[in-house]
């Protein structure tokens, strides 16, 4: 029994304490804010001013520097939400529930941003705002999944129950995402294949994909900042009856 007890690192259990999580997120926040600002500003300037324009699409291709990071983030945010929800279900961690709840609106916004930038890019390139292409459709379905989770959160008044229900729904969605993705892929495909692959060198020119990489990192840092701010807010709201929150609020 005693050897089984210590198989998870100590910080994992410490995260279960809302107060400890609140403090550690407060300490991490400035660093991530600086990193997000740095990467986003450098990436944007590099992408818009210095990266070469595409020989076919001209300057309109530059919107991918927003489109690709937001699409990547929308997908990984769902993973994060489902995993945080699973941790909340298994270890009954309140903080994990709060993280999962904070993920949903960010992910939905990112999915919407990816769809909007895709539409703006599609108009000059494909000649229409929207096509029923596989990748667009699966991003739209991802947005629907997010909206379902958000709707479930707002429908259930009891916070603990809402968190557990939404976690189950997010996990069901996680199982479904690959099925949806492949079904839609076989159904119709017009979109180009993924820009980044872990196993291969990208087909884009180096001076084009480097700023994209910077933007993706910047978006992830921004996601971390936004998630920590939302989670800290959520901790304060849910723990409003705890003495340390009252002290904290009293001080300000």
């Amino acid at each position, binding site marked *: 029994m005693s050897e089984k007890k210590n198989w998870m690192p100590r910080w994992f259990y410490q995260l279960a304490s809302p107060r400890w999580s609140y403090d550690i997120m407060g300490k991490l926040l400035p660093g991530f804010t600086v990193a997000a600002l740095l990467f986003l500003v450098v990436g944007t300037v590099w992408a818009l001013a210095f990266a070469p324009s595409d020989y076919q699409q001209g300057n309109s291709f530059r919107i991918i520097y927003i489109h690709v990071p937001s699409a990547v983030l929308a997908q990984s945010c769902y993973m994060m939400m489902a995993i945080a929800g699973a941790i909340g279900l298994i270890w009954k961690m309140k903080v994990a529930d709060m993280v999962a709840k904070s993920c949903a609106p960010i992910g939905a916004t990112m999915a919407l941003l990816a769809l909007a930038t895709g539409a703006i890019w599609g108009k000059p390139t494909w000649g229409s705002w929207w096509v029923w292409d596989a990748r667009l459709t699966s991003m739209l379905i991802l947005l*629907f999944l997010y909206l*379902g989770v958000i709707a479930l959160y707002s429908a259930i008044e009891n916070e603990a129950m809402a968190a557990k229900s939404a976690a*189950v729904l997010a996990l069901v969605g996680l199982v479904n995402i690959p099925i949806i993705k492949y079904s839609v892929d076989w159904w119709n495909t017009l979109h180009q294949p993924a820009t980044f692959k872990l196993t291969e060198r990208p087909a884009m020119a180096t001076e084009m994909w480097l700023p994209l990489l910077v933007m993706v990192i910047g978006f992830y840092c921004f996601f971390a900042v936004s998630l920590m701010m939302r989670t800290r807010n959520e901790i304060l709201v849910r723990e409003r009856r705890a003495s340390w929150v009252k002290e904290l609020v009293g001080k300000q």
Partner: protein
Amino acid sequence: MEKIVTNEQSGSEGSSVSGLFGAVLKRDLMLAYRKKSDLFNPLIFFLMVATLFPLGVSPEPEFLAEIAPGVVWVAALLATLLSMDGLFKSDFEDGTLEQTLLSPQPLFVVVLAKVLAHWMMSGLPLALLAPLLAVMLFLPAEGMSGLMLSLLLGTPTLSLVGAIGAALTVGLRKGGVLISLLVLPLYIPVLIFGTSAVQAAVTGLPLAGFFALLGAILALGLVLAPLAIGAALRISVSG
């Protein structure tokens, strides 16, 4: 009432898993049979939705034949969704659900039996009624077998996935619209493969691949969905 039925069953057959499955299935089918409007309303809805398309879009036979697979499938999907709301509702209201959760019997089996009963009262009649709609929408005769088989393979998955939504929203007063929001995105793969199977049948292409995919999704659903339904029911009932 449920207690009486299960007691009788466990007295005669022992508390075996198949006995439990049979008892729950029998009870749910009997309840559905006694409240016939619940059985017929989704079917009437199914017919009405399909009637809206010729009226709203175009009565041209060629055009209708082209959209028929999609229309029948979408109508079946919506009809299943409509009947989903009541799956756990009455059990929740009269306390049966709570007793079921407290009982030592495996929830997986109980839930699976309830979903099967629901499918026999919704998906199965829909699949049997589908050829009528298909004729009304001028679907070529070659497509009939594909339509019925794809519905028979696809609607159980719809019931399984829909039951997750029903279990999550059973304690809420306004669960109806919410179920659709939660469940409709998850229905998309079944819809895609179902309509593709019918279209392949109409054009004379091989069907086996689509049926294999629908069957694979059903197999996955049979194994995983009852777990999610059980977890969702526990959350909804005990908070």
